[in-house]
Each structure stands twice: as structure tokens, then as C-alpha cells.
């Protein structure tokens, strides 16, 4: 069942982009749109958007970089570990949960490390990869998406995003404990 679902999604994913390009450009051509000219007209904004993101992303990544390099994460882990023990979350995966919203490449390295140490099919291995697979790099997305349109006052986006991350982590612990728990 899972196999069928997986191969179906894989096929759709592989075909999605070519199909999408074909339908959009083909439809445009059929509707007598000057496809090449209109495409170039739209593509022109690509450079400006990318450049507009730079200051926002520099600010965000530089702050995250300092925090990570200082080793302050160890203290946060020590501070939070009593709470995570209470919900049955192994102490080993707590750093991953904390790093996930901050750094995509960093949390990927941590997840790989955890699976190398404990085995990919162990409880910790499955939990770590589930936690990684069920979340996104909140701070990065915030900087890029808001940065591209010059949003500086982010209002409730960050608290809501972090609440989502927290519940994603709790959900992952809950389901992995039920299905693969010790």
C-alpha cells in the first residue's frame, strides 16, 4: 500500500514540471499569446527579486551562524531536556528539533549523524528522519519570502511558525512512539 502510494507520488513528481511547462506554454500558444515575449517580460524580474532578498538573508543567517558557532545550543538543550524527558522524547533528538527551524543544512547533518550512530531503522533513527521530513527551515523561509517584498514588520508570522514547528515535533514523537515505540 505504502509502496503504491510512494511510486505514484514519485511518478507525479517526476512528470509535474515538464507537464506544467507544456500545459502553461502550450495553452498560452493556443490562446495566441506571444509566448516568447511574454516569458521574457516575466523572467526579467528574477534578478531583482533575488537581489532584494540579500540583506534579509544576510541578517538572518549571520545571527543564526553566531548562535550555532558559540555552542549555546548545548545550554538550551540542557535547559529543555527535563521537559522533553517528560513527553518521552529521547534526549538525543532534542538538538535536532531545536536546530530544524534555524538551519536546513545543519539539521540535515545532525539527522545523518543520529542515524549513523543509532542506525536508520532504530527508534531514534526513525524519529530523527521523521522530524526532519515533517518540517521546514522556518527562519530561512521567513527571511526569503518576506525579504523579497521588503516586509520588515513580520507581525505574528514567526510565533505562529514556531508553534507549528513545536506541534510538528510533538506530532512526530507521538506517532513514532506509537508505531515504532520501545
Amino acid at each position: 500500500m505504502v509502496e503504491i502510494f510512494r511510486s505514484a507520488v514519485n511518478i507525479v513528481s517526476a512528470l509535474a514540471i515538464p507537464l506544467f511547462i507544456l500545459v502553461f506554454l502550450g495553452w498560452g500558444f493556443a490562446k495566441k499569446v506571444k509566448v516568447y515575449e511574454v516569458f521574457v517580460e516575466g523572467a526579467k524580474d528574477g534578478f531583482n527579486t533575488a537581489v532584494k532578498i540579500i540583506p534579509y538573508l544576510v541578517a538572518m543567517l549571520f545571527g543564526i551562524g553566531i548562535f550555532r558557532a558559540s555552542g549555546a545550543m548545548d545550554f538550551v538543550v540542557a535547559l529543555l531536556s527535563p521537559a522533553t524527558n517528560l513527553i518521552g522524547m529521547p534526549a538525543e533528538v532534542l538538538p535536532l528539533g531545536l536546530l530544524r527551524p534555524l538551519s536546513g543544512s545543519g539539521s540535515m547533518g545532525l539527522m545523518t549523524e543520529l542515524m549513523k550512530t543509532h542506525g536508520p531503522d532504530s527508534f531514534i533513527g526513525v524519529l530523527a528522519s521523521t522530524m526532519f521530513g515533517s518540517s521546514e527551515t522556518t527562519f530561512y523561509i521567513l527571511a526569503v519570502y518576506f525579504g523579497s517584498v521588503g516586509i520588515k514588520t513580520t507581525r505574528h508570522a514567526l510565533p505562529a511558525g514556531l508553534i507549528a514547528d513545536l506541534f510538528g515535533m510533538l506530532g512526530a514523537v507521538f506517532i513514532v512512539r506509537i508505531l515504532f515505540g520501545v
Partner: protein
Amino acid sequence: MLNYVWIALILIGVFTAAGRDANDEIVNTYRNNIPLTSTLEITKKNTSLHPSFEGFLHIPAATFNQFYNIASTQSDVRQPVVISTLASGKIKMELPIGDQSPIFWQEMARAAGGKEKLEADVSSFSIDEKASTQQIIFTLEKVSFVKIKAVTKAAIEYADVAVTISLGLIGVMALWLGIMKVGETAGLLQLLTKLMTPITKRLFPDVPPDHPAVGAMIMNMAANMLGLNNAATPLGLKAMEELNKINPKAGTATNAMCTFLVINTSGLTLIPATAIAIRAGLGSADPGIIIGTSIFGAGCATIAGLISVKILQRLPRYKKAMEVTEGEANNG
């Protein structure tokens, strides 16, 4: 809130680094000025006016751990070294640090200025020894301010990474913006938008249901579901641009923008491709076993995110941030 989180990351980072370095100085974590005794195996000898030697240091893991008061070294140390005698009669030793070196020494080499070697003063060593192994006593170079140096390096490196990432988006951005423009001109995007109206008018009540932003948001969510990251970001940024056109207050995130962002950060995807690929690479018996659990986890995140975004937007402090005062109206 972002202001507080951001400054907290930086302040906590700098203070932690400074505190850890002060602690390292006090307990002498890196054993500055303390000589270490070990066995030296000489494999190559260059006899000239100033003879030099190549060989390996052999230190049992237990001795190494005891010397540095750590527990991280599992296997016995076998560290290549180059010993040279100087005209002044001093003997210097160079330790090229690579993957085979103890992790503790790798950290020390990084801290000693990012070089791939450590240097040492040798205090006891016999040049004329005939046997291939002998005892050697040496003192490694001083290592201090490890964390502060790491913080400085990270600050500059990450600023660089930010620019690389941003500029790397130019190509895919241009491609998807071009395709979207064609879809928009041909009326296809509007058609798609109409189909999804029942869902989108609930999620984004402030956005007119036939607005081009809705089409871009739908495409972004579809790309995210399918795990097409290269397409999802440009489409999301296109959606942001459209949402910003109906933003009454430039520079401030609207309710719709926050909702859209939370959907993206919750990371709901049908196939968590990166995690599965890494699992397969590490020899998992069933790499895809996390598909169901990941969908469940991301589902929890998405639902919690949507509920909190709808509750939080009613809070007075966030409502107030959206009020348009004279002279602040959107001019772009």
C-alpha cells in the same frame, strides 16, 4: 517578535562564546604549556646539517583522554609528525591534522587559526637514537579564544552564504516567473484560481478570490506537496509579490501573508525526499517507512500553525501593527 529572537540569537551567541573561552582559560582545557609524553615511531630520517625526521606519534586512547580530561577518543592515536631541528638547537614538531587525527586535535587546529596543522616545541628527543621508536616529550602551541574565533568566522562565512543562496535563486526565479506570466496572460492561472476558490476563500478571506495571488499560492502549495523545491520557492515569491500589491501598509506583513508563510514553514509534503535519500544511503531496510509518520507530523504542524495564525491575528498588538496611519500608505 523577530526583533527579540534575532538579537537574542546574537547576544546569547557572543556571551556564551566569551564565557566558554574564559572557562577554557581557567581550567586550561587545551593544556597550554603542559608537556605531553608519548611514543614516537620514526619512519624516515634526513641526515644533513639540520636533521629532520618523519614518523608517527602513538598515544593510547586512554592516555589521550586522561591528558585532556575528555571521553571522546575511541581508538588509539596514530598521528603523523615531522620533526625538524633548527640552527638555534631547538627542536620543532609539526602535526598535520587530517581526518585520522583525534577530533580534539582537529578542533584545536581549527581554533589555532584555521590551519590544517598543529605545531609543538619538543623538550625531550634523541637525535642519535638508533632504534626506530623512542620516547618524546613535547608541548603543543597555545590555543585560546576558541569559541570567540569560531563566532567571528561564522558571522563572516554566513553573510557570504546568504549572498550565494540569494544569487543562486536568480535562474529558477526567472524561469518560473516567465512561465507564470505566460499562464497569467493566457488566462490559465485565473481558471485554476476559480477551481480552488472554496478552499482559498476560507484560508485567505482578505484576498479577492479571483486575485492572481491566489493562483500563485495554489501552485506553490502544489509544488511543496510534490517536493519540488526548485519550483516552490519561485512560485511562493511570486505569490508574495502579488499579495504585496494588495497590502495597505508597505513593509508590514498582512494576515494573508502570515497565513501563507505558516503553510510554507509547516512543510507538508507527500514524500520527504531528502530524509528518505539519506536513510537509503545509510543502509536502511525500509527508507520509505517515514512517509506516513512525516505526513502526520507535518499535518499536525500545519493544523497548529493555521489555528495559531488565525488566533494571533486578532491580538491587539498584531492588529495595531496593521493600522495605516497618514503618510504610511502603500506607495509601491
